[in-house]
């Protein structure tokens, strides 16, 4: 399997007035295509910063980051937008659906920015919503859906442009246990179909669904190991 994410000696330092906050201190990390990874750590450990850098929402202070064989560091704003659109499927803790758009329109959104024709968008979005089990609710607005259903819409949206990576930031943080299990089972299924899935979480039982756990503390990786499912 090829390397989908390759991070070398990555540093990120925030300047907050006169105080320097070293969020990441020399990260080296490789994730291969088809992996199912959990990134864990306390808040302030640097896991969210890494997540933002992997998602091309933030830029590292130094070091190198290769995504799907291409160096991301130094890309223009426009190229970063394009990369987010094509390479990353985001799933957020707060769902982040657009409230005045239907489930269908929300799933279509990444395809709008990918300049896909309307008919194609509608067809694909409908199919994706069916895949996540929401075929009956494509015209519902987000506030007419339960938390678990909202997150399913968000997952369908993340799959819209068939990105090589699904990046989920605390995807079960706002869900009850039953819904959390359903969402994690959905991620497991997507991973089994060959997709690379990266999940940021601080809950051990969520991390247990994945195949590899990476633990963060004070901006450094302190643990990186396979999960034993036996």
């Amino acid at each position, binding site marked *: 399997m090829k390397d989908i994410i390759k991070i070398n000696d990555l540093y990120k330092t925030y300047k907050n007035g006169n105080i320097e906050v070293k969020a990441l201190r020399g990260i080296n990390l490789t994730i291969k295509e088809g992996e199912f990874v959990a990134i864990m750590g306390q808040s302030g450990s640097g896991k969210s910063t890494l997540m*933002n850098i992997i*998602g091309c*929402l*933030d830029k590292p202070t130094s070091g190198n980051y290769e995504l799907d064989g291409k160096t991301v560091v130094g890309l223009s*704003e*426009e190229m970063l*937008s*394009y990369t*987010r*659109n*094509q390479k990353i499927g*985001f799933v*957020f803790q707060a769902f*982040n*659906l*657009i*409230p*005045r*758009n239907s489930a269908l329109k929300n799933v279509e*959104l*990444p395809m*709008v*920015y*990918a*300049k896909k*024709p309307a008919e194609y968008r509608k067809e694909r979005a409908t199919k994706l919503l069916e895949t996540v089990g929401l075929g009956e609710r494509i015209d519902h607005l987000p506030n007419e859906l339960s938390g678990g259903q909202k997150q399913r819409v968000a997952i369908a*949206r993340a799959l819209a*442009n068939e990105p090589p990576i699904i990046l989920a930031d605390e995807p079960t943080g706002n869900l009850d246990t039953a819904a959390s299990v359903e969402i994690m089972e959905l991620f497991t299924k997507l991973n089994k179909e060959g997709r690379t899935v990266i999940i940021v979480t601080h809950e051990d039982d969520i991390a247990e669904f994945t195949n590899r756990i990476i633990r963060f503390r004070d901006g450094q990786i302190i643990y990186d190991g396979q999960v034993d499912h036996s």
Partner: protein
Amino acid sequence: MMLIIESLKLALTSIKMNKLRSFLTMLGMIIGISSVISIVSIGDTMRGVISKEYESFGKNRISIYIYNSDEGYSDVFSFEEIEKIQEAFPDDINYIGPSTGISGEIINKNQKNKCNINGLSPNYQNIQNFKIIYGRNLSENDINAGKKYVLLQNTSSSKLFGTEDGTGKIITVESNGTIEEYLVVGIYENTQSTFQKLFAGNSDTHTLYAPARAFSSEDSAFFNIDLNINDTTDKELFKSRVASLIGRMKNVEPQHVRVYAASDEMSTIDDMMSKLSLAVGAIAAISLIVGGIGIMNIMLVSVTERTREIGIRKALGARTSDILLQFLIESAIISAAGGIIGTILGAGTILLGGLLINIPVVIKPTVILTAVSFSALVGIFFGLYPAKKAASKDPIAALRYE
């Protein structure tokens, strides 16, 4: 292109989601555009009415009199002299006659009604085309012989005789202490618009037309000559030629021969009116800027409210330019929609008003086009700052925004 269509749809949805707010935002533009359109159209309509008024008087009509303002004397013309002027310009003049008439009272069954009788000379059809509905026009023969025949207006006929067709009736007119009788040979229809009637004033005075010679003799003298020139004649050249001819004829300096064309005054008035309506229109245009500021205000609120949405869109691959376009289109649509509603309102008011006082209103398409495109421009201009603010938001911070 596709993104523009998507942005249009988006803008329409967000306008629909906030109907009241969008309407209130548009209100500034609606008021601004409708006042600009009504003011400019009122100006254009007035110009139209005034120039029509002049045209009905005759754009080729010229009035001549002699007046020396230094010494304060004037001179008069005789029929013979008027004929000489006509003979000097046979190709240019299609009507010439003394400007004459009498005022008096029509004695009718112990009642007295005020009247004006205007004197006509040969070829009077060239300056005044009567719409005869009963009887006939005055003939060349009637005019030359100075027959005591009159043309009467249909409304006057109804008042005097109780019937519109007053042909064959005798009208007795008392003027300057003498009483004369006139035979009604034709009835003409009143073709004045309501607006003209407004200016015509007291309609109790009957207006009649008779041959000039019916109440003038061969040795009568006239202060004014009324004449009409052909379309092909050079007006300015004719004016100076006729002035020098009369100067020689009457032995006065040509500059004291006053040759006055209605069209001279009309272009002055027209120029004044267009400047006036431009000035008032410009003042009204200030309200458009106020409307634009209102749009900017609401767009800034909208951008703040939708910070999270902007963050989501950016995370999903929207470029800075996509966000900019989305908000620009939204403010342009609000503004242009306000402009269109304002146009309908303004033009509607003017059309209705014109219908009520029965005058043909002038609403120039260029005015509407300018107003609507200007309103869209105002929307884009005042939407630019909020849109830039939206587009420059940091996606990470925007995603965290509550």
